[in-house]
């Protein structure tokens, strides 16, 4: 009798999800520190351009819509897998990754344009804060894309198992969390710039 009880397996997943929630909480503190830094340094533009002059809320709105859409498809992917619809789950995951990649391209082209015009992170404390806060979120998205691709291969290979359900759930927690952080970046950084 060397089969692990279902209870043992469930407890393991339960633990992993709990721990992952805790990690997300610590990530919130990390972003909170970056937001605080940005808000304090925003007026310090050192005779360089201000937030209102550089940041375009309507461009960021497109980014927001793309990211929100990716969160939606990510939710579909988890639900579809739960109900055993592997193809739908995979298709939604692919959409999630494509939308995520689009978001990242949009963000990078915004950065490139700023740098091209000479507004680099070395110009002022405000720009240091801006690039660091937004790029930290971008870096999380990048990690999310790698993780999502791994999930895609995993679901393709194994279909709906307890393991794939748990792993996909954790990924979706992460992805929705990044969406949430972006809402704050959109509101505080981009909409805030228009005020």
């Amino acid at each position, binding site marked *: 009798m060397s089969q692990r009880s279902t209870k043992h397996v469930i407890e393991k997943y339960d633990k992993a999800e709990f721990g992952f929630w805790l990690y997300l909480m*610590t990530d919130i503190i990390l972003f909170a520190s970056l937001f605080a830094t940005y808000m304090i340094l925003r007026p*310090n533009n050192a005779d360089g351009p201000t937030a209102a002059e550089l940041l375009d809320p309507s461009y960021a709105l497109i980014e927001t819509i793309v990211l929100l859409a990716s969160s939606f498809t990510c939710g579909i992917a988890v639900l579809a897998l739960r109900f055993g619809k592997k193809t739908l789950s995979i298709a939604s995951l692919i959409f999630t990754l494509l939308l995520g990649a689009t978001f990242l391209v949009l963000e990078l082209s915004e950065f490139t344009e700023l740098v091209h015009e000479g507004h680099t992170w070395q110009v002022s404390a405000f720009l*240091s804060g801006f690039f660091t806060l937004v790029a930290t979120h971008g870096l999380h998205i990048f990690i999310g894309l790698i993780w999502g691709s791994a999930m895609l291969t*995993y679901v393709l290979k194994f279909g709906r198992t307890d393991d794939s359900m748990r792993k996909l759930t954790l990924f979706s927690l992460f992805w929705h969390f990044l969406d949430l952080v972006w809402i704050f970046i959109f509101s505080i950084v981009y909409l805030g710039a228009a005020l």
Partner: protein
Amino acid sequence: MSELFDFLVGRLSLEYFPKDPVTIGAAIGMPLTVLGLVALITYLKRWRWLWENWLTSLDAKKIGVMYMIVAIVMLLRGVADAAMLRLQTALAVNGAEGPFTTDTFQQVFTAHGTIMIFFVAMGLAFGLINCVLPLMIGARDMAFPMMNSISLWLFIAGMVLINLSLVFGGFSNGGWLGYPPLTGLEYNPGPGVDYWIWSLQIAGIGSLLSGINFFTTIIKHRAPGMTLWKMPVFSWSVLVTSVLIMLAFPILTVTLALLGLDRTMGMHFFTSDAGGNPMLYINLIWAWGHPEVYILVIPAFGVFSEVVATYSKKKLFGYKTMVYALIAIMFLSFIVWQHHFFTMGAGANVNAFFGIMTMVIAIPTGVKIFNWLFTMYKGRIEFKAPMVWFLAFVVTFTLGGVSGVLMAVPALDFQVHNTMFLVAHFHNVIIGGVVFGFFAGITHWFPKIFGFKLHDGLGRWSAILWQVGFILAFIPLYILGLMGAVRRLDSYSDPTWQPLFITSGIGVLVIAGGIGLFLLQLAYSVWKRKELRDDNGDPWDGRTLEWSVPSPAPHYNFAVIPRVTRRDDWWHMKQAGKTGIKQKEFKDIWLPKNTGIGVYIGVIAGIFGFGIIWHLWWLALLCIIAIIAIVLQRTLSIQDSEYHVSANELFHESARAMK
């Protein structure tokens, strides 16, 4: 061609090898010691044994022991640094040359502070928690055993980096918290500050993971029946500490990252030009730094709560107030950080608020001290070594607390800010609280981990030498501080200070004697381990669950997970005479297999840190890719990470251990 060369070697250059005789001595001595150790292990053919039984182990107790070995080795380095500092101040008076240059002196005090906090106090805390926590709450292991091993190896990677700076490149001269703009690129272009940043960053991420691990373990792994209110106070202290870790360490991560960006990407967070704001750094680092000191001392409070109850043969006085006091400290520790810089222009009202909050935090701490004393009242007290550590703690820590409340008065703080008075104060609480606490804890739980007790007499003498040395080393500093001696002073002109500095230096030697006795105690106890053997697993007539299993505790901790009905369950089971386990209660169990992933990630993280410090961007990138590859490989494979121990095996093994 030369561009490619620059790209490949970054800023590595032969000029970074040390030049002055003191550092050269250290730079030769340290690698030789390491080489000697490697040669010894090779000669004894113990590499395989070391790898399979220790380095790759996921057993929390072994991980805890490795943390503590690192911490004790680092304690030796930290004390050597302290002795160098006091040697300088004993001699460099009135124009006389001390043995060290100003730059060396600055590196030494920075290294002393950084090592003592991050690699001694944190190491002892995490080591002890790993050894004791699962046993105490009736668990087989930590919630995430592999992450536990990763935490350990990130800690070790940070430790290696900080020591590497001694051999190559020099260390930061910016003090243990590295205030900018001094630590910015403009005033400190060399690799020293980068060593400081990346050593702490890597170790800090390990600590953050540990915090998550400890918290999940307590929430999810308690034995059936053990509600939070039935947990021993040490477990409560770990719960509170892990909350503090999770809330505070991300701030450290951000602060260090921003300083690193200033230094490597030319950003302007904390520079004195282009709108940078150094005060922002000071606020951020203390928003982490103040909770950090409670992260260190709260587990020590937990240790004393167990020690005092056990050796007084009474239940802990005021269990609930003990827990509420911990929780109060947890909240208050986040709203006192500004008291570290009353003099830096926050204004009277802000200073008043933080001053009052700082005084308020003395109340729950006072509650705890009195509860411990009331626990002793009318107890049958055994003055074993842990109790001697406790008594030394009460005297020292209370004195430190009182000088802390003094400095919480902003008006007074303007006089003693950044003087030797402050240095004396925080050594008073950290040595008295943290160091004495963990030495008490090590002595108390040693038999549970190793199966034999530490020699009691030597332990008591070690505690007494520490206490005497402490008084000699730090009371003069209080006086010097009031006389106007600022901290981090490498020479001075007032000859009346010299006798006090010499007394303080003698105190360091006495403390070193205390450490020597502790090492002697370890060696002697290993030698006499047959006589000191702990036969029944309960040498101190303990109260909590860890004493219900044989010593040394088996790798699975509990053959049968106990059912808990009340606080101090083991004590009451003994009173009622119901301690045995029936054969039919044994069940099959699964345990995590050993894995080298923690070691690999630690090594790669260390190389990554080295790459960033020396601007070897290609190396850093390769390391990141390697870590991602390892994590992905682990995520994508469905290899079985657990192994099986049958009920039958368990039964026979525990029957043998109980004989």
